[in-house]
């Protein structure tokens, strides 16, 4: 369709709606504008909600509402005994969406898989830098570049990935948004028309909804993909009404201008819950907020000092004051909804007297330290400054003087990674793929010291456990290893684990079939509106 015909088609839908015909339109008041519509160069959930989730599929996918990996465009797969070769058998008869200027002449096949990955992997690939300044940050951050040795087309419907080392989370990585499968044929068409950059503006995928139009910073329109291989969606049109302010989103939902809104302000949740026309779904977020000591610096190099400080902290008070009850105290570095969570771990009891004595026994008196408070709100931490103030008051009880420091967000992220950093840092993490390695390896592994391991904690025993778990494919065995790692973590206390936040999703009561996703994505496949 040309832009004009797209508009005409949509106008027809509009008229049908106005005339009371049965077309169903769901309006989602999204929290921000997508950066683009090619998921690979981006890392923001807002972008994925508008691109990879409605428009695309992946070889394997997260089951809606869980972190369980299920077949997607690959019907099945096998892993070689040495864990180095992954062979995927692709689904046949899957059609790419038809839009103006592109009518697919063939079904999805192995060429599309090779195109989607090789453009990210090979710097020499003609599509690697199809618009200026493009970088594949997620692909790189998940270490896919060094992990994948080669991708081979065995036949039209079989693809073999060869890895450089065994890596159990690999399958979960492939379910992530950056691994979305794009059409190689569409890319060719764009190239011939000299419009390569449209790959990031007008998406074509195999997913449940197809893109219709985007008015920058205002509205994104999709319609149900009539040929979707899992079947056409119950709603006909999906509209994202971009509304950045949470108070305004709430007003729009209450006024019936949208059906679903993400990220309400914690203070508004009660008002939303008391509205009869609104249902507020809630779920523990797949996240953790923590205070990371710099374990390379005295006296924080001693586990007993760190444990003593953890015991001096009243974490429940932080949940009550900062999270306003919309969270729970964390005792492990991974959230309770994640597999391998060790519920047998005992959290350090809040006991200022005992903490004081432990500090004295360790020879620590008149300790002054810095606590870093993030300048921004994150899903795992509504107000780091307030949290730091509560910690400051708690530590004063045991004779520790705290100075609170903060920096601009980019600087904060950079300086907090510095091994020479002075002070303990408040920070957190939201899971990417539901694998425990994505928390324990990324945040506490020896390889991440000086980077995302803000405690600069490299513990041989802990690291051996997570390294072994990473290269073992048996999930029961991995679970046992991670459970043991959590015990070791608690014993050594490189962090004070602060909280896991609760995520709320308010929606009209007539919305059915919506599932909250632990990984934070907002999906509308399977969603319907009751008459």
């Amino acid at each position, binding site marked *: 369709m040309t832009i004009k015909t797209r*508009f005409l088609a949509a106008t027809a839908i509009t008229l049908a709606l106005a005339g009371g015909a049965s077309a169903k339109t769901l309006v989602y008041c999204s929290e921000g504008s997508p950066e683009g519509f090619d998921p690979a160069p981006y890392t923001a959930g807002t972008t994925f909600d508008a691109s990879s989730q409605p428009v695309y599929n992946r070889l394997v996918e997260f089951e809606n509402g869980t972190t369980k990996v299920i077949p997607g465009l690959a019907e099945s797969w096998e892993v070689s005994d040495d864990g180095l070769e992954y062979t995927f058998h692709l689904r046949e008869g899957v059609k790419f969406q038809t839009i103006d200027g592109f009518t697919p002449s063939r079904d999805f096949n192995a060429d599309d898989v090779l195109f989607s990955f090789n453009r990210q992997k090979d710097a020499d690939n003609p599509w690697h830098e199809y618009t200026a*300044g493009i970088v594949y940050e997620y692909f790189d951050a998940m270490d896919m570049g060094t992990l994948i040795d080669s991708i081979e087309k065995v036949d039209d419907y079989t693809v073999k990935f060869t890895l450089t080392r065994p890596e159990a989370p690999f399958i979960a990585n492939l379910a992530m948004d950056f691994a979305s499968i794009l059409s190689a044929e569409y890319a060719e068409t764009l190239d011939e028309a000299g419009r390569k950059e449209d790959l990031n503006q007008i998406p074509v995928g195999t997913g449940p909804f197809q893109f219709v139009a985007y008015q920058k910073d205002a509205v994104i329109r999709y319609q149900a993909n009539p040929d979707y291989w899992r079947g056409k969606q119950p709603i006909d049109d999906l509209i994202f009404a971009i*509304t950045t302010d949470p108070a305004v989103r709430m007003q729009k939902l209450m006024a019936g201008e949208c059906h679903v809104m993400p990220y309400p302000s914690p203070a508004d949740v009660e008002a939303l819950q008391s509205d009869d026309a609104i249902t507020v779904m809630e779920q523990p977020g797949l996240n953790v907020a923590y205070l990371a000591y710099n374990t390379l610096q005295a006296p924080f190099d001693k586990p007993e000092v760190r444990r003593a400080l953890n015991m001096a902290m009243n974490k429940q008070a932080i949940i009550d004051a900062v999270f306003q009850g919309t969270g729970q105290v964390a005792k492990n570095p991974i959230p309770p909804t994640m597999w391998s969570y060790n519920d047998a771990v005992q959290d350090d009891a809040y006991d200022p007297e005992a903490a004081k004595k432990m500090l004295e026994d360790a020879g620590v008196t008149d300790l002054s330290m810095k606590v870093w408070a993030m300048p921004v709100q994150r899903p795992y931490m509504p107000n780091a400054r307030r949290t730091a103030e509560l910690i400051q008051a708690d530590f004063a009880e045991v004779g520790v003087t705290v100075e609170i420091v903060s920096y601009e967000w980019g600087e904060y992220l950079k300086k907090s990674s510095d091994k020479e950093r002075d002070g303990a840092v408040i920070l957190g993490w939201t899971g990417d793929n539901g694998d425990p390695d994505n928390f324990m390896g990324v945040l506490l592994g020896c390889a991440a010291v000086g980077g995302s391991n803000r405690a600069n904690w490299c513990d041989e025993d802990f690291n051996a456990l997570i390294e072994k778990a990473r290269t073992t494919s048996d999930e029961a065995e991995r679970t046992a290893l991670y459970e043991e790692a959590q015990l070791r973590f608690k014993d050594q206390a490189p962090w004070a684990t602060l909280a896991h936040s609760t995520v709320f999703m308010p929606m009209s009561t007539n919305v059915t079939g919506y599932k909250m996703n632990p990984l934070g994505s907002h999906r509308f496949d399977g969603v319907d509106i009751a008459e």
Partner: protein
Amino acid sequence: MLRFLLAKLAVLVPTFFGITIVAFGFVRVLPGDPVLLMAGERGLSPERYQQLLHQLGFDRPLWEQYLGYLAGLFQGDLGTSLVTKKPVLTEFMALFPATVELGLCAMLLATIVGIPLGVFAAIRRGSWFDQVSMGTALVGYSMPIFWWGLLLIILFSGILQWTPVSGRISLLYFFPPVTGFMLIDSLLSGQSGAFASAVSHLILPTIVLATIPMAVIARQSRSAMLEVLSEDYVRTARAKGMSPWRVVNVHALRNALIPVITTIGLQVGVVLAGAILTETIFSWPGIGKWMVDSIFRRDYPVVQGGLLLIAAVVMIVNLLVDLLYGLINPRIRHK
């Protein structure tokens, strides 16, 4: 008149260069950079960080980056957004009409309400009307825009349900942007109800954005009018037995308007600044919101290009005001 125009234009050239330096420097003075923000909590290894800086060209010396920026400008290239990978000018042109539409409506409202309010308050100096209207103007002037906007939404959209909460038009209407001005495009679309929907979406943001300029214009009109009313020629006119209506409308108002027009011109900058907050509250897809987002993301090309374009608009408007001023007041153009 031509010399007057040329003199005004000559001042614009150094101003323009000054702005390029400010626009280029401003976003780089801010701590943090786009690469760090992109990596988020995960962080980057120092090698990867350098590699990305290099790829984006931010590891080059500042003067080199600045010259590159200037060279681009002379070829009409304002750069490409680091985030959306789209040309800055394309993005600006797509969003600018929304800001202009809202800004014009706000200025119109501020003027047609502000001037009569101020004039009437001056004529009835010291009356209850004067006290109430100038008191209200002071409150309006000090109103925090964000709070005021939300208050209006809760009252008129939430409780009374008279106006829509946010956006430019009901989502039911969907037509290609022709001019980018929703009021015009909705008429061109031929869809029944579209224009009314566009108008209803404009009401609250217009009131919010007009509040401060309206207060300023009303106060300026009042004081200018008071000054003129105390002039000798007004007394003479009155003494000659001219009707009060004619004294005010024919003799006083025209002269009182000169400083008011200057004020209105200066309010264009205020409206563009106010648009940042107003657009955020009402999800209005204009350049104010676009600039704020880009500053937060340290999208260097958008910030430096956007600031330059906005500054150019303000300069052109002020130039037009100067010309208008010259038309109204012959003494100025003959100086």
